[in-house]
């Protein structure tokens, strides 16, 4: 099972990081980052299944495929931002990570404009 693998990586990484703190403190940071990336790579393949299922549901519900594409794009952007922000925070620089989050929010907002337009069109046809 994958969960045992993930738990094992986490525990081994923690033990090594705590040990390295007393031996070679400058490498603990990189060890932390690499352990985090390892965990993310292990979990990222599960997103594929979810996205396929999401597209199926969207087409079954008769939603415009362009809108589904935009939503999946927004999910991708938010996952990327989450990963990068976690990495940056592992390096211990909070101010940069805050700015990355802000930039991501603005990007997502601009990407969502077609969806909002569509919603407004639907509302105006109802009225």
């Amino acid at each position, binding site marked *: 099972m994958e969960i045992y693998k993930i738990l*094992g990586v986490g525990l081994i990484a923690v033990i090594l990081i705590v040990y*390295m703190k007393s*031996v*070679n403190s400058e490498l603990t940071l990189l*060890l932390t980052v*690499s352990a985090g990336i390892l965990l993310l*790579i292990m979990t990222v*393949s599960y997103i594929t299944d979810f996205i396929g299922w999401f597209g199926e549901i969207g087409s079954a519900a008769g939603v415009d495929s362009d809108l589904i594409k935009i939503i999946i794009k927004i999910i991708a952007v938010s*996952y990327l931002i989450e990963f990068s922000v976690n*990495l940056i925070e592992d390096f211990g620089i909070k101010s940069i990570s805050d700015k990355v989050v802000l930039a991501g929010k603005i990007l997502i907002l601009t990407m969502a404009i077609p969806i909002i337009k569509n919603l407004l069109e639907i509302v105006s046809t109802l009225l």
Partner: protein
Amino acid sequence: MNVDIIFRIAAIGILITVICQILKKSDREDIATLVSLAGLVIVLTLVIGMISDLFETIKEIFNFY
């Protein structure tokens, strides 16, 4: 890419520390600094490769749609 990359980084760290200790004991501080810097660069290369791998995977996953 698997768990062994964490062990590899830890092994490099311990090795570099031992080398640095020996060099420091034999009064070669400058070489010790260079060795620790080299270790840092090696590990950094490994980590950057991992980061690019992760981003490549994400790109692949989301490019299908």
